[in-house]
């Protein structure tokens, strides 16, 4: 090992990060090279001194920190209150509008939409006689769903082929009632 190589591994030598073989080579070099031995001793000295470097905070550091935290908390709270006080009118207006919109949406979804879907376009559904008496009628669900969901304006746009022929259940019910 030469001096240049030792320089490169000196740090690992100090921190004991070398393999047994590398350490042995370094030790052999140190035993013959006064320059590297002196450099290593000097480096160890510097590092030992650096470990002793200590500095402490001022005696009032903690109280200043706590004051700082307290102030920032108060500032945060007062900022929110001030913001509300300064802009109370627009905030109230926005809140009222929001409430109105929310109520409208609620009313529309809970009252208007169920009614709209409930009123089936009766004219579109052509009733037919039941195929048999045990009320088993083949119904095209997909096809029947379409006119039920669509609004009344679909009446004019839908071609005749899309019209669903449902069995006449009313007639069946009436027959059953008569039999009773």
């Amino acid at each position, binding site marked *: 090992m030469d001096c240049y190589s030792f320089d490169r591994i000196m740090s690992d030598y100090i921190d004991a990060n070398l393999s047994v073989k590398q350490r042995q080579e370094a030790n052999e070099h140190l035993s013959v090279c006064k320059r590297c031995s002196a450099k290593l001793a000097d480096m160890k000295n*510097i590092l030992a*001194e650096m470990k002793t470097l200590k500095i402490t*905070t001022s005696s009032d550091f*903690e109280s200043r*920190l706590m004051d*700082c935290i307290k102030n920032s908390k108060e500032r945060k709270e007062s900022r929110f209150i001030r913001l509300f006080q300064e802009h109370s009118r627009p905030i109230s207006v926005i809140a009222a509008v929001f409430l109105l919109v929310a109520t409208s949406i609620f009313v529309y979804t809970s009252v208007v939409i169920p009614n709209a879907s409930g009123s089936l376009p009766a004219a579109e559904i052509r009733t037919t006689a039941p195929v048999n008496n045990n009320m088993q009628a083949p119904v095209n669900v997909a096809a029947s769903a379409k006119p039920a969901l669509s609004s009344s304006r679909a009446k004019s746009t839908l071609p005749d082929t899309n019209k669903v022929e449902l069995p006449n259940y009313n007639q069946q019910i009436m027959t059953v009632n008569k039999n009773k």
Partner: protein
Amino acid sequence: MYKDKIKYTDEELVKRFQEGDERAYIELVKRYKDRLLNFVFRYLNSFEQSEDVVQDTLMKLYTSAHMYREIAKFSTWIFTIAANLAKSELRRQKRRRTISIHTMGYDNKEYEIPSDDYSPERETTSNYGEKQIQQAIDTLPDQFKTVIILREVQQLSYEEISQILNISIGTVKSRINRGRLRLQKMLKELKEQ
């Protein structure tokens, strides 16, 4: 303040603070204020500014403790915050110095802004004094300076330094080696002056 200090690890204290125990925060402040100052001061070489940075770090701990997850050690987390704040402060300092040099006239030869707000004169028994070591640290480029302070002053492991600086352990080792050699060279020059 907790009487049974040894009972709680840093991580347990943070957890308690996250749950709303303010005494745990105070205990953490007591444990870390000087360690953080020692690190930041070696970096900035200005006592007042270093105290401000430590205060900001501990404020951040107060406001962002909920961000801490027990994946990393608490010391790594808090030193990462302090290192970032110290770096920002150093950048600001450099910008300020550049501006002040630009605004100076040709007659004004005082380009160096000495750091005179804290000058520990304590000389150790060995070859180099604290002042000389601090001067030598100041001359190191940032990338070496941080690893050297974290390793030699704070006594952190390679792994912890690697996590704080978000660099590989190989890079940490290489920077420590090069940083130490530069520091030694600089101290030798200062001694010969």
